[in-house]
C-alpha cells in the first residue's frame, strides 16, 4: 500500500492504495466517480476511461493510481462548472452525439482537450482526433457534428459573437 495525494475535480484527496491499483479503479472504486468507464481489457483501445491528467487527455486504464500522486485529475464529473454544461456537453445532447452513453465520458474528455488544441478543426481532423475512442452506437456521424458545432460555439464565444 502507498499513500498518494491527488487533486480530482478540484478536491484534494489523500488515500492509501495498493501499488497495483489502476487509476481508473481508484477513480471508480475509491472516489466513486463512476462516470469514467472501462470498455476494453485495460489495453487503452476503447478510450471510455479517458480523463485529464494535469489538463491533458490520458487513458486512466493505462496508469497506476500511484503514478497520479501529486497530480491533478479531471473526470467527466468535473467538466461542467457552476455555470452549467460546457458547449461540448451541450452540443452532444443537441446533436444527438450519444446513444448508450458508455463511450461518451471518454469522448468528451478527449475532445475537450482536442478542441483546446484545435479550435477550428475540419471534419477530417475531428475524425482523426477520435481514433482513440470507440463508439458502437452512433456511427460517429453525430459525434463529428457535435464536436464541429461545439468548436464553432466556442470560437464565437471567445470572439464575443453571439451564437
Amino acid at each position: 500500500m502507498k499513500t498518494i495525494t491527488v487533486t480530482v475535480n478540484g478536491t484534494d484527496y489523500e488515500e492509501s492504495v495498493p501499488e497495483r491499483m489502476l487509476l481508473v479503479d481508484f477513480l471508480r472504486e475509491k472516489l466513486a466517480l463512476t462516470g469514467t468507464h472501462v470498455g476494453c481489457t485495460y489495453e487503452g483501445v476503447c478510450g471510455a476511461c479517458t480523463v485529464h491528467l494535469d489538463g491533458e487527455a490520458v487513458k486512466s486504464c493505462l496508469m497506476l493510481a500511484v503514478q497520479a500522486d501529486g497530480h491533478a485529475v479531471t473526470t467527466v464529473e468535473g467538466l461542467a462548472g457552476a455555470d452549467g454544461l460546457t458547449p461540448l456537453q451541450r452540443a452532444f445532447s443537441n446533436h444527438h452525439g450519444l446513444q448508450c452513453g458508455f463511450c461518451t465520458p471518454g469522448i468528451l474528455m478527449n475532445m475537450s482537450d482536442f478542441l483546446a488544441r484545435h479550435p477550428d478543426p475540419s471534419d477530417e481532423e475531428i475524425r482523426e482526433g477520435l481514433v482513440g475512442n470507440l463508439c458502437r452506437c452512433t456511427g460517429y456521424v453525430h459525434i463529428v457534428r457535435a464536436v464541429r458545432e461545439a468548436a464553432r460555439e466556442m470560437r464565437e464565444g471567445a470572439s464575443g459573437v453571439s451564437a
Partner: protein
Amino acid sequence: MSSVENSADWLGARLARKEDLRLVTGQGRYLADIVLPGMLHAVFVRSEYAHARITGIDTSEARAMAGVVAVYTGEEMKAHVKSMPQPVVTPNLPARYPTFWPLAVDKVKFHGEPVALVIARDKYVAVDAAECVYVDYEELPVVLDPEQALGEGSPLVHEEDGSNEIFAMTLTGGETPEEQAANAAAVEEIFQRADVVVSQRFRCHRTGITPMEPRGVLCDWNDSDGLTAWITTQRPHIDRLALSDLLDIPAEQVRVVAPRDQGGGFGVKAPFYRENLAIAHAARTLKRPVRWVESRYESLMNVGQERDQINDLEIAASKEGKLLALRNRGVADNGVGTTGVYWGFVMPFLGAVELPNAYTWERGDVQLRVATTNKAPLTPSRAFGHFPTRFALERGIDMIAHRLGMEPAELRRRNLVPTLPYTSVTGEYYDSGDFVKVWDNLMERVDLPAFRAEQAQARAEGRYLGIGFGCGVELSGVASELLVPMENQPGYGAASVRLDPRGKVLVFGGDAPGGQGHETTTAQVVAALFGIRPSDVVVTTGDTGTTPFGSGSIGARAGSYFVSAVAKACAELKDKITRILAHDLQLEASVQHFEFVNGEIVYLGDDSKRKPFTEVVERIIMFPINLPEGEVGGLEHTAFFEAAKPMICFNADCCIVEVDADSGNFSIRRWVTSEDVGTLINPNIVDGQMHGAIVQGLSNAMFEEFVYDEQGQQMSADFEHYKLATAADVPDIEVTYAPTPCPHTPLGTRGIGEGRPSSVPGALTNAVCDALSPFGIEITELPLRPGTLWKLLREARG
C-alpha cells in the same frame, strides 16, 4: 433544438433526449456502477482448450488465499441448478438441444467456456485466485468447420446427440416431404428454362455487434424476498422466469432489474446466459451480494459472434431481367449453441426466412443445415441471421445484372414487390409500405446518370469509381405468430401508464433498452396524446418488480409494439378523463368532443369550456366524489398491443467507392439511404439508429473478424485483434426518408433499426465490383479487405 408549443408537433420533433443530461455529466448508472454493502466479486475460470475432457480441478490453493470466499466447480454446481434446456428459454422448433449447466461438466467444448467460479472480497484477489485454480485437461479432437462437422466421422461436440446437426429445415414448399419434393421439382423446372442462372457460393465470416459495455450481473439474496438480480439484459422478464425455473426459486421471489443505463445491447444482451445462473447460485448459497463484470477479453471469447454462414445460392432470371426463382443451400457454423433462447441456430433460421428480401419470385427452394462446432455459440447481433443471406442475395442480383448487361439499379426496381401486403416465397408476411417509392427517392438523391458520366471520365483518367445498391425488408417488431414458435415467447407490447395527482405521467415498460432513446420517444408520444410536455413524462423500463411483462428490447419492438401499447393506454385514460370532465361540465360529450392541447382539455363545441389537464387529473385521483354513476377514481391503465399480422419496415442503400486498382485499397466516397420508418417520432433518434447500424455493417464487412486457429484457440479476444471501425475509418452518411405510415399501429409508427445493417455488405461489395467491372471481379466472401482485392486483381490480370 425545436421549441414546440403545439402539442401535436411533439410527434416528429428533433428533441434533445431526456437521457442525455445524466450521460454527458457522468451520472449514468450502468451495471458496474452499482455497489451493495458487503458485495463480493466474481471471476470465472475459463477453458484453455476448444475441446477437452476435464480430468481434475484443484481448487485448494485458490480457496486458501486470503480474501477468497468460495470456489465452485461444474460438478458442485450441477447438484443445485437444473440443466438446460428448459422450456422458458427454448424455441418451439425441432432441434437437438444440448444439455449443459452453468459451468462445464466432464468436458469443455470451446475455448473460453466457464469451468470454475471464484468469489472473493476484492476484485484483484479474485483475479489472482482464478489463476490458482488448476484444471487438468485431456485434449480431444476439435471440429471447427461446419461442413466437416456435418460429415461422416467428425468428432462430436455434444456426444449424447449422436450428430453435430443441431438444426435443419426446408423453408419452402409446404410441410410434407411430398409437397417439398414437388416444389423442388417446380423450381428445378424454372432453372431449366431460365435465360440466365447465377450459381455461386457466398461466405460470411464470424463477426457481430459487440456493445461497448460488456455483460454483467449483480445478485442479492435474502431468505424472505429471495433473489434480486441486476443484469445487463434486453429481456429482464424472460431472465426472471428462467432464473426461477432453473434455480427452483418461486417466481414471486425473483426480481430482475435491467439497469436504466446499459451500454448497448444489439442482441448480445438478449439471450439467457449461463453466467447469470452461476452468480445467482453463488449469492443464494453465500447469502451475500455477488457481482460479476465481464472483461472485454471474456466478452470477445463468448458473445457477439454471429453471421458465420455459407450460402450456396442460385438465381434464375429471364433475359428481360425478371427474377424467377431462387434456390439456396445454407450451412451455418453454430458453435456450441449453449445459450438460452437462441441456441445459436435461431439466427440462421431467420436469416433463411428473410432471404427473398423485397423482390418478387415465382418460387423458392430454401434449405438450411446448422452445424455444432467447437467455437463459442452464435449469439444474436443486429441484422439477426440475415447479414450473410442478404449479402449473398444482393451480390447475386448484381451478378445477374452483369450477365444481362443491365443496370443493377434498374434490375432491382423492376423486381421490387409492387404492392403490399405480400407473402414471400419463404412465407414471410410484408404488411404495408411502398418499396418503389423508397427506391425512387433513393435514385433521386443519387442521380445515377450523372454518376455514370463521372465514372466514365474517371476511368479515362485511370481511376476506378463504383456504385452499389442494396435494400432490406426488416421486421417491425416480432409478431407472436413468429415469436412463439421461434423463441417460445409472446410478441405483444405492454405498457402501464400512470397519472400522478400533480398531472405528471409515469410510463412503465418491461423491455430494457440500451441506448435507443426510449425515454424520449415514449415521452414525445405521451406528450402529444395528452397535450402536455415531454418533460412532464417519466419513463421507467426493465424492472420486473414494477413493469408489465414484455419479451424484451428486441426486433425493433419499441416503435412498433411498445409505443402502440402506450398509445392504447393513453387512449383508455383519455376516455375516462373526458367521461368525468363531461359530467363535471354538464355536457353530453365524450372523448372525440375534446382536444388535449397545451396543458388543457378543451371542449370543441365551446372552447370557453376548458380545464387545465393537471386540475382534471388531480380531481379524478384525489377527489373522487360526485362522479358519474359507475365511475371510480384513479388514473392508471395497462394496455397490450398486437397487430393482427406481422409488420415490416423497409430501406435502401447506395454506396459510392473509389478503388485503387494497383493496391486494392478502397475508400467510401458517399453513402446515401432511403427509409420507410412509418410516422417519425424523433428524426434525430432515427437518423442516429441508421448511422449506427450502417457503420456497424461496414465495420463487420471490412474490419471485424473472430479468428480461431487450427486447435480452436481464439486469436481475436481483444480490441487490438478484433478491430472495430473508428471515426477515421468510416464516411459521413446521408439519411433520407420516404415514409408510409403503418396502417396497423395507432400512430402509424414502425419499429426500426434492428435489421438495418443487413443491406450494407451487399451495397458495399456491389460498389467495389462495379468499380472493378473492367476486371470482371465478383466478390463472394466477406470480410472485404484491400489484401483480398489485391489478390483478385492480380488473378484477373493473369
